[in-house]
């Protein structure tokens, strides 16, 4: 599993961790029952504060994606992949809508946007 942190991002570091772990779960990279690295180990590997990874795990736990076993650590929950996928799609749609809004303001046609998307997708 790979987690990349962009320090200058507009997304908070803990959100970046949350998103990437979510993706790993959706894509099946992390399977249910699998143990996650400990809060402290992950913080060390990513070179971020302990409290940041702690918050990321807490958020994932709140969403029911992972669960903590006292004294042992965090594990990926049994989950419904379809439901998760659905959620991811909704989020993507929302972000795309924003981009399209911006594109309209810049005076781009639907064709222009499609072209741009294709070029970026195949890149």
């Amino acid at each position, binding site marked *: 599993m790979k987690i990349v942190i962009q320090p*200058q991002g*507009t997304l*908070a570091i*803990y959100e970046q961790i949350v998103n990437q772990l979510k993706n790993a779960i959706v894509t099946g990279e992390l399977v249910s029952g699998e143990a996650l690295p400990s809060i*402290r180990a992950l913080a*060390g590997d990513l*070179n*971020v*504060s*302990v*409290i*940041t990874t702690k*918050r990321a795990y807490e958020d994932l736990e709140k969403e029911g994606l992972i669960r903590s076993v006292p004294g042992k650590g965090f594990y990926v929950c049994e989950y419904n992949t379809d439901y998760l996928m659905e959620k991811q799609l909704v989020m993507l749609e929302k972000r795309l809508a924003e981009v399209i*809004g*911006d594109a309209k303001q810049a005076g781009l046609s639907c064709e222009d946007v499609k072209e741009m998307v294709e070029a970026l997708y195949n890149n």
Partner: protein
Amino acid sequence: MLLELKDVSKRLGKFHIKNISMDLPDGYILGLIGPNGSGKTSLIHLILGLYKPNSGDILIDGKSYADEEIAIRNMIGTVLLDEMFDDGVSLLSNGIRYGRYYENFSQDTFEAYLERFNLDKKRKYNKLSKGEKLKFQFAFSLSYNPKLLILDEPTGNFDPEFRKEFFQVLKEFIADGTRSVIVSTHLTEDLDKMADYILYIENGSTIFSGDIEKLRDSYRLVTGENYKINLIDKERIIHKEMGNYGTRALVTHRPRYTYDKEVTVAIPTLEEVMYFVTKREKGGRSK
């Protein structure tokens, strides 16, 4: 909790430390930040039990200086700017001289840290540079296995290479989750990546006290055209800086607040928070 500050106040001549509260659990790093003269060193003197607060309580691992001073001192390691060790005496002898007062002092550990920090144990203390003296103090403090490390402005005199090493050591120190670090500094760059808790004081008063994620949740750095930034509630703008190509402002953030599309919103670094808050304080005072 390794450190509990409960509403601590202290009058120091004309300067006042006012109602500072902070909890630091085991296994974390607390960054004590603020501009020069904001009271960081005085607060550290209070935490070290060198000053007694006029009101409020200071507990170290649940113990108070009044009742268990020796137990507390055995578990506190310090790196201060003062040059407190004996001149004309080797580093090794200095360590043994003062180490023998500590319950858990280990000469082996001490020598191992000297070696790790590239300090020759036979060198005389007064022959060290400023940065090396701090390194020595650091090695000495680690030699008796403290639970709480307190470091006052340590990094200013370190070369960049040791600075990395220094933060590595701090991370190792807290790695097992039983020990904590308090580090005061006005250079906050390193803290962005390391600190778990932040106590930000200015003029002896708390600006922020809590975990760093909460701090990041509380502020946003907004860049864009001035009239767009003016759309944000006035009382939420901490300080605004107008430049030729746009305006930058630090604002207090609310969850799920949506900003105007044409402004760039970023999570500020500690340095940026400090910069804008200090500007506001100065502006406020001159009015």
